[in-house]
């Protein structure tokens, strides 16, 4: 008897009473912790000024956000506003689960944003960003590196000087360069530095090029020939080493900057150095992170959602993000502000972004990452040659794209 009474009580607790006069808007996002606080404060302010609107903000990790949104939106539900990196738009567009925004916002409003902060795809505006970024740059520990290198040869030289065994126990305690070198996304700057790219304008992979081979060889050399990176280094290892002050240079992105400030590392940001052989600046992938509107939002609710949306991408809210975390805003007014212009870290980030290349939004990119990863790691592990790897990556990418589009 007791168990059933208990269950009954639970049922009681779970039926949430809904106030029919109140508008409930749900936002799903994947913002890292520092940004989350900014968002939540902004939302609280909005709710204070709009007492009949309740905004619920839910965090989900990027991959999970993507699959959860797909499942719920296709089933007719899901949040009203979804926030994330631009590459999720490719998939959402195919599944027709986001609204075209140029039909909702007028041109005057849209023109307030820097064009790089808007995501147009297949003729429609699907996402308005609140930050441009997500790109990799070079961070350097000012105590160890006085002036950041401008060429790869300088980087290697500085790296060799810094990689040493400090306490004489036979183990290297300090490295010149650390970064998550096993993940293809972190390989892109080198690929572009040698003139390569992942796909052509129609989405076909272009991995079996000379540039790919040279870039693969170069990364492997950093580890095996010049020995300025640890033998095994994933994201968390690189992060920990830099925080402990045991790394001269690090390749990472804007999301990590807050953590290093908190750890008290005296660091600077610079462009990833030019490749000597080609003279090119490595171009990391640049993407926006922004808001989209769920296709399932009802006509009745839409005006409220639009109002909240405009608030979330307003220059004021964008600058709050910038103040807290150094993100690059997208609103033209925000970009002109003192906060942006006076901060050297942000300026350095902007200069890296300007030589970057926009991240492709098409779903095929996922297949390409999956194809690159095993062979890229095999090259680093020394089990195949760069030539073989480039060829195999290409074939696997073609195969996976075919499979995905069946």
């Amino acid at each position, binding site marked *: 008897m*007791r*168990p059933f009474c*208990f*269950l009954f009580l*639970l*049922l009681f*607790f*779970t*039926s*949430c009473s809904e106030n029919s006069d109140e508008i409930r808007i*749900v936002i799903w996002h*994947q913002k*890292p*912790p*520092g940004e989350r606080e900014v968002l939540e404060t902004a939302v609280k302010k909005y709710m204070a000024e709009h007492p009949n609107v309740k905004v*619920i903000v*839910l*965090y*989900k*990790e*990027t*991959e*999970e956000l993507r699959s*959860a949104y797909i*499942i*719920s939106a296709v*089933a007719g*539900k899901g949040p009203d506003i979804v926030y994330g990196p631009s590459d999720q738009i490719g998939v959402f567009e195919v599944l027709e689960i986001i609204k075209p925004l140029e039909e909702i916002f007028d041109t005057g409003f849209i023109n307030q944003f820097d064009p790089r902060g808007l995501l147009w795809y297949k003729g429609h505006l699907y996402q308005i960003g609140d930050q441009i970024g997500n790109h990799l740059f070079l961070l350097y520990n000012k105590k160890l590196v006085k002036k950041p290198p401008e060429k790869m040869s300088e980087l290697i030289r500085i790296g060799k000087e810094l990689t040493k065994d400090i306490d004489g126990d036979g183990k290297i*305690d300090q490295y010149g360069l650390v970064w998550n070198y096993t993940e293809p996304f972190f390989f892109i700057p080198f690929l572009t530095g040698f003139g390569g790219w992942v796909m052509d304008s129609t989405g076909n992979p272009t991995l079996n090029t000379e540039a790919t081979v040279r870039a693969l060889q170069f990364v492997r050399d950093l580890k095996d020939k010049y020995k300025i990176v640890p033998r095994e280094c994933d*994201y*968390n*290892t690189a*992060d*920990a*080493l830099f*925080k*402990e002050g*045991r790394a001269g240079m690090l390749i990472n*992105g804007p*999301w*990590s900057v*807050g*953590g290093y400030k*908190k*750890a*008290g590392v005296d660091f600077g940001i610079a462009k990833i150095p030019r490749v000597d052989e080609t003279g090119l600046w490595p171009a990391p992938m640049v993407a926006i992170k922004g808001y989209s509107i769920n296709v399932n939002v009802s006509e009745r609710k839409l005006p409220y959602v639009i109002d909240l949306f405009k608030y979330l991408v307003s220059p004021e809210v964008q600058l709050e993000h910038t103040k807290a975390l150094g993100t690059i805003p997208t609103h033209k007014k925000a970009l002109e502000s003192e906060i942006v212009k006076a901060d050297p870290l942000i300026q350095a980030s902007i200069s890296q972004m300007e030589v970057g290349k926009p991240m492709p939004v098409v779903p095929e990119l996922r297949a390409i990452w999956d194809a690159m990863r095993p062979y890229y790691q095999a090259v680093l592990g020394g089990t195949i040659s760069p030539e073989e790897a480039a060829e195999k990556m290409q074939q696997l990418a073609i195969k996976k794209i075919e499979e995905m589009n069946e």
Partner: protein
Amino acid sequence: MNEKVKKILIDFSAYLFLVIFTSLTIYPVLNVVSISLRPADKLLSTSLSIIPEGATLSSYISLFTETLFLRWLLNSTLISLAVMITGVTLASTAGYALSRFKFFGKKAVMIGILITQMFPATMLLLPLYIMLIKLKLLNSYLGVIIVYTSTALPFCVWQMKGYYDTIPVSLEEAARIDGCNQFQAFYKVVFPLALPALVITALFSFMSSWAEYVVAAQILQEPELYTLAIGLKQFESSMATQWGLYAAGSLFVSIPAVLLFLILSRYLISGLTLGSVKG
């Protein structure tokens, strides 16, 4: 003399083995403690010291003051206790029926129960979600409890049956002769003897719900309803995890589970063996 020496030697080896093995077992746990005390959210460290340099309790303080941890704790406790009670109730009765009676289709039922466990869970999520939407069980504890119970039951039912099998039927027959009906024979004679198995069932039902993430994250859509597992996940971010909070949170998540085990293990080793129930 020989017997005594042998006994002391065996006891000594047993202690030695236990100490070594336990130390090896808890070493990773100590690592988690280090992560929780480390400043600046570092998963790894180049130093092996358990108490890190600059050790700070700030993660623990944040955990309780800046997050909804206590709320999640309450939610998880409610859900897991509900699953535990339901699991024990349903499994103790179902296991008994399977142990004592022969009936048409019995083998099919037993194997069928096992079969429900064999399907890879990842594939079941999408249809489960659709089903829950249709039944309006989304965003409710009831939905979560039902799903958890259904995943915990197969093991519990089998476990109870297996344990009942070790209790001779003659005891119930004796009780029947004394005037009890089937239900009373079950409740008064067999049930108490199955205490160790009931403990295992309770513990298992609780543990399988306590830290479960995937199903809970799919069903619960409101921060006030979040369980501990979902809450912990909030600290995780593909490239900016707050390891300090995450480790501290994980340790606190384990405490109730360990406490439950402490309380229940007394009944696990109750010593209420058949030998003590004669006549």
